[in-house]
């Protein structure tokens, strides 16, 4: 057990959550972060899907890393990711149809998510399966956290709801409160991601 959660393995799991966050430090996977965060629920599902796919694609690629010919490794990685994306997409359609409609093409487009290819190339190709798996989980969760923060503010301020439940009380609307329409546009989510980066760097002095 001690080897399973050695210092290096813990590092692989936790560093993407903070100092090596794929979205706010490496600035990867921004497109989908802008596209699916208008509401909280799709943001959570998207974060979860990416976590599962990064974790298992890292695991599979790491298992076969020594038998992949170097010249066709990108194709092999893509095949693995595409298979996983298809599985997740079908599961979503079967068990969470509404959300999969909201996410539309963005589940399929996880295959082009830079975080995935980045982790496969940078980590899974040169590490053992278990650390690769942890690295995939960490990066997926690091991505999901940012999506959830942005989705939280966009849904709260843009629609007055959270997970579809009305949060802003009716008397606010009666007294002239109006939902902020710009929050539902992708432009504003870019500004929100910028704010998260701002706060994160102000807090972590060594990133400045």
């Amino acid at each position, binding site marked *: 057990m001690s080897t399973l959660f050695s210092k290096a393995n813990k590092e692989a799991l936790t560093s993407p959550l903070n100092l090596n966050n794929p979205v706010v430090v490496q600035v990867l996977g921004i497109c989908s972060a802008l596209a699916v965060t208008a509401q909280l629920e799709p943001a959570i599902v998207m974060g979860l899907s990416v976590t599962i796919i990064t974790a298992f694609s890292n695991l599979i690629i790491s298992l076969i890393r020594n038998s992949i010919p170097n010249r066709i490794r990108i194709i092999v990685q893509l095949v693995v990711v595409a298979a996983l994306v298809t599985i997740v997409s079908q599961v979503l359609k079967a068990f969470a149809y509404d959300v999969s409609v909201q996410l539309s093409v963005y589940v399929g487009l996880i295959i082009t998510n830079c975080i995935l290819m980045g982790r496969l190339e940078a980590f899974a190709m040169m590490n053992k399966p278990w650390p690769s798996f942890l690295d995939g989980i960490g990066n997926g969760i690091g991505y999901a956290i940012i999506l959830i923060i942005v989705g939280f503010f966009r849904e709260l301020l843009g629609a007055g709801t959270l997970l579809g439940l009305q949060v802003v009380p009716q008397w606010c609307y009666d007294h*002239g409160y*109006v939902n*902020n*329409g*710009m*929050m539902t*546009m992708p*432009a504003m989510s870019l*500004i929100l991601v910028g704010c998260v980066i701002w706060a994160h760097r102000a807090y972590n002095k060594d990133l400045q």
Partner: protein
Amino acid sequence: MNSLRKYFDKIKPNFEEGGKLHAFRSLYDGFETFAFVPNTTARVGGTHIHDAIDSKRIMSLVVIALVPALLFGMYNVGYQNALAAGQLENATFWGMFFYGFLAVLPKLIVSYVVGLGIEFTVAQWKNEEIQEGFLVSGIIIPMIVPVNTPLWMLAIAVAFSVIFAKEIFGGTGMNIFNVALITRAFLFFSYPSCMTGDDTVWVAQDTILGLGFAVPDTFSAATPLGEIAAGATALSTSFCDQVVGLIPGSIGETSVIAIALGALLLLWTGVASWKTMLSVFVGGALTGWFYNALGLSPLDACQHIVLGGFCFGAVFMATDPVTSARTEGGKWIYGFLIGFVAVTVRVLNPGYPEGMMLAILLMNLFAPLIDYCFVSRNISRRAKRLTSK
């Protein structure tokens, strides 16, 4: 004036290091340099050409140039209210003016308190001198919104634009986009129903402190450009009213005559560039004529210029020295494209009756590129001249 100077000198020690009001030193500094030109001169060494006029004095001139449009806007608020209530014959000039004054004043106060509050806080926090850029933005912002804009929306929009359009770029003089226009764009995209749309936003509908008239709920009044966007082919207001400014619209933008007074002052003192201003009008007029000749727009070139925020934008916002092109040749292109884009948005996009805001913001973005092209063209021309000798 002398007593004011003495008063400033008397309270100064309180704000210096160790004084009991040290926390408010940027506030003191801001007001002192606003009232009096600072007594500092350029350091010896190098060559400095120093004008007696500094940015606070330039800002004050622009504010003075805006006053006619603001006063007329106040009157027009009262006039539109009386007109909508059908009580025009019962309304007096001063009654209408004070009604408008009371309707506009809270917006002015909110705009200045929020905007300057953020600027003073940032200056204090970063230990910098107070920056004066908000003096002009603060008076422009209430003039480019509909009279029925709720104050809390205005406050959020002002805070958003001062922080995200100005302070994060480094403060006054560093902003890429015109701060007042970002405020309006924020309102426009965030709260579309309160900025255009249902045609009840342009006319104040309640009495204020007993002044003015209550307007029935069923009433609606569109701006001339709104009427055209809705498919009308003829306007309900006369051309004379449109020039004088007795039409529904944002508070300060309706009167061509009042804006022209401000334009004269800006051009006479050389604060605004006549090249930018002229080329905006030329671009708008040519484009308007073109679309009219093609039959795409029922408005002729002259009406395109008179209506909406075209004049106000051309005179007070396209000429903003910070965000406009700075090369002399670039000013022509910059201005012309503003006029062109503004009229094009009006005519070709039925969703946006008015395109001036979007046109100026778009060209703000391109101004550095235009400058870059002109500067590099100049460099290569000189290099050629050097090598051909």
